[in-house]
């Protein structure tokens, strides 16, 4: 273990036969921060050849930073990495390959051409291409990862492209594969066959595999060991045989309730202010039915990528292919345009503050007018605008939410995340919407800004608004919600009617184990 890295063992025989204690990827004391933001603290990991190591963690737990360090894209602030006893320096190692969630393939090229990308200089002859095709076919047969080397990538399914990525990594000579949420875009049937193939690669070819995932069932199905990252620390590491999903869920979400519980003081007046009936978006949302009463805050929990953004789109009037019904106060609303929903009394705080909420390059006053410039008092007759009304509204909202801006004309892009969110909230709340749909409202915000957003939501609920909170932050959900539903792969898989909510059960349901929650 303490052999100096300089003793060259680069010519060792295949790992499967020789996997001694020195083999594998060893990370020790890895730390990394971005500015004041500490992303990784003292993480030590050992990935052995021939094993599948599952790495769990919520969004922002530090998984992708760790992987970027491992692939040499990012230098660590502290710590060492050795790969089969060779020190890993900047630029990474040929032995480690990452398969990204978003594939790094050129769609208009064939599989074989993609394999040769960046590995050949000058003209690639037909002979070279044919040889590569043969190599790919041989490798495909050997590994059981079926693949047609002469097919154009854009004709392949997501699952096939995934296999191409894995084959390419193996073809490059990788002995350690980092798979970043490899099942994220796959159909359920494909998920199982991919997981089986991953196991085969480890067991039969001695490949060391890191499987990054949110799905607890995949961990149990494919992994040998599992590590959990939370807040930049490796908080647990166990053999899969010894863990339960409840344990994993608890490790993943932690136990500390951050900022206190703010459940509704008064009994919600009930009723059905917002009601979704069988709302589906092909491939994204499956028959979602839920209701939110006046004065009630219902949270939609779930790991991102399980249909939250589609749900947000539907309620924003931006999901063209949605089916099912949305009712506001028992009246069905046309969801084909954002305006119809707004006119029906729905206010949206979008998850993506800058692509949907604010135009960075324009002033706060303009940004605040975006939703209301077509109606009086901002609009005057004959298509004209009242600039004074725009200014007054901006001043009013800036004052009401204490937005830190020197003037209404301050560019929105110069505001901090928290104050940008105040502008969005202020704009939405100024219309006193009866229904508020809030998506990931505190993402990227610091504690103080988070507190402000939460207080604002609670205050609005107290005034009788029906609030639907779409969030992947369990602290937020447990602190605010009156009811929780869990979205998993586009379906509501669990409902929790009354707090205090069982975080383990919530975490399990978010990871796809609804039976635990039931």
């Amino acid at each position, binding site marked *: 273990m303490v052999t100096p890295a300089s003793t060259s063992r680069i010519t060792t025989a295949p790992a499967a036969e020789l996997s001694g204690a020195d083999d594998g990827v060893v990370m020790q004391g890895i730390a990394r921060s971005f500015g004041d933001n500490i992303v990784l603290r003292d993480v030590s990991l050992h990935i052995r050849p021939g094993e599948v190591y599952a790495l769990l963690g919520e969004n922002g737990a530090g998984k992708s930073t760790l992987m970027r360090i491992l692939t040499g894209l990012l230098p660590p602030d502290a710590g060492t990495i050795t790969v089969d006893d060779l020190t890993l320096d900047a630029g990474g190692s040929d032995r480690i390959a990452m398969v990204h969630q978003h594939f790094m393939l050129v769609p208009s090229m064939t599989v074989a051409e993609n394999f040769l990308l960046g590995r050949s200089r000058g003209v690639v002859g037909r002979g070279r291409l044919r040889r590569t095709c043969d190599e790919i076919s041989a490798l495909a047969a050997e590994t059981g990862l079926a693949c047609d080397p002469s097919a154009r990538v854009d004709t392949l399914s997501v699952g096939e492209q995934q296999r191409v990525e894995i084959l390419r990594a193996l073809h490059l000579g990788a002995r350690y594969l980092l798979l970043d949420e490899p099942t994220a875009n796959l159909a359920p049937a494909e998920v199982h066959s991919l997981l089986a193939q991953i196991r085969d690669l480890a067991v039969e070819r001695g490949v060391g595999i890191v499987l990054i995932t949110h799905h607890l069932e995949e961990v149990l199905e494919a992994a040998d060991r599992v590590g959990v990252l939370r807040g930049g620390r490796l908080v647990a590491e166990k053999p899969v045989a010894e863990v339960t999903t409840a344990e994993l869920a608890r490790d993943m979400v932690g136990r500390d309730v951050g900022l206190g519980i703010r459940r509704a003081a008064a009994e919600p007046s009930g009723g059905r202010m917002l009601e979704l009936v069988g709302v589906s978006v092909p491939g994204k949302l499956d028959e979602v039915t839920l209701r939110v009463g006046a004065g009630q805050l219902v949270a939609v929990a779930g790991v991102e990528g399980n249909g939250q953004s589609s749900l947000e789109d539907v309620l*924003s*009037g*931006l999901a063209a292919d949605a089916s099912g019904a949305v009712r506001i106060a028992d009246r069905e609303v046309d969801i084909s*345009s*954002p*305006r119809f929903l*707004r006119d029906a009394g729905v206010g*949206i705080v*979008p998850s993506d503050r800058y*692509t*949907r*909420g*604010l*135009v*960075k*390059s*324009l002033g706060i006053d*303009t940004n605040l*007018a*975006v*939703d209301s*410039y*077509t109606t009086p008092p901002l*609009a005057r007759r004959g*298509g*004209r*605008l009242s*600039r004074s009304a725009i200014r007054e509204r901006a001043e009013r909202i800036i004052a009401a939410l204490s937005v830190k801006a*020197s*003037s209404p*004309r*301050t*560019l929105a892009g*110069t505001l901090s995340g928290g104050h940008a969110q105040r502008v969005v909230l202020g704009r939405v709340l100024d219309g006193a919407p009866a229904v508020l749909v809030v998506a990931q409202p505190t993402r990227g915000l610091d504690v103080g800004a988070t507190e402000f957003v939460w207080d604002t939501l609670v205050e609005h609920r107290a005034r009788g608004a029906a609030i639907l909170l779409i969030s992947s932050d369990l602290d937020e959900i447990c602190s605010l919600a009156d009811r929780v539903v869990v979205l998993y792969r586009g379906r509501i898989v669990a409902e929790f009617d009354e707090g205090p909510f069982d975080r383990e059960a919530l975490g399990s349901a978010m990871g796809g184990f609804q039976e635990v929650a039931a």
Partner: protein
Amino acid sequence: MSTGMLSPPVAAPPPDPATRSRLRSLLTTVGIPFLAVAVGLAVGAVLIVLAGGNPGEAYATMLNAALGGDTQLGRLLTGMTPLVLIGLGYAIAYRTGFITIGAQGHYDVGAITAAAVVLSLPLGTSWVAIPVVAVTAAVAGACVGGIAGVLKARLGVNEIISSLMLNYLVFYALAWTVRKPLANPNGFTPESERIPDWAALATIPGTRIHIGVFVAVAAVPLVWWLMRSTRFGFSSQIVGESPSVAAANGISVARTIVTSALISGALGGIAGAIMLLGSEFRLSLAVSSGIGFTAIVVALLGRRNPFGIVLAAALVSGLTLGSQAVQRTQEIPASIGTVVQAVMILTVLLANRIVERAR
């Protein structure tokens, strides 16, 4: 407020951030064009030296050719007129994020339409005659501009390419028009007959300044108002800066783009009609002179501000007149004027990027 500055104890309070940011934005708005002009003229001076001339003398001649007297001023103003109108059209389109380069086509089709109307319709001397011509030319320009707009809005076709191709289409329509339907039977080159006298734009007696100049003068505040104080002006700004925010707030991105395309086309069409009826008096291939591209220089240098566009048009127009004069008197190639324009644009683009990155 100040962050630990070791300034004299009784110093004036530092300007608050709002004033400072406004100052800075003023500095870039005004500073970049001036920087561009300076760099352009400096490069021009080097070229003049290389061509064997004296930069001071050459620039003096240019200035004189642009502003030296009533005749020169009249020529400058009539030369500026189409640049201002087209530049305003580009400003509206660019504000919407619609990066058309199709004004040459709008301008040509405006000229064709104007020629066709005055040469073939018996409008006579009625006072409605000229407005009718202007409106038909505007409609024709809007139709051509609208094609690129609809292609972009409905199908996502790149407007730079489609508008450029439409320029060719219109140019060959012009070439056909002056050879076939409107060909002058006595002409030596492909051209139409001279427009009837009633159709020539009235001028201020004793000058070359025709009423088309006043159309441009009126268009400047009108476009400024349209951008600043109307619903369309507002939605075009949002669409231009962030189509996704616009869509999320129920602003129709497609409709806004098409409207912008129509307006910029109409302004180009009017410019073409004014040039035909005020300066050219007959349709020929010379009408299609590249002014639609020169106006891009004007729109960028004027920073899409209507009043900035007037200044930029004066500069560009003066440079063109001046470099022609320099060629006549000092045998320095007039193309130096074009080079100076090009350098100015490159400077503007470069400075814009530098300012953006510094933010």
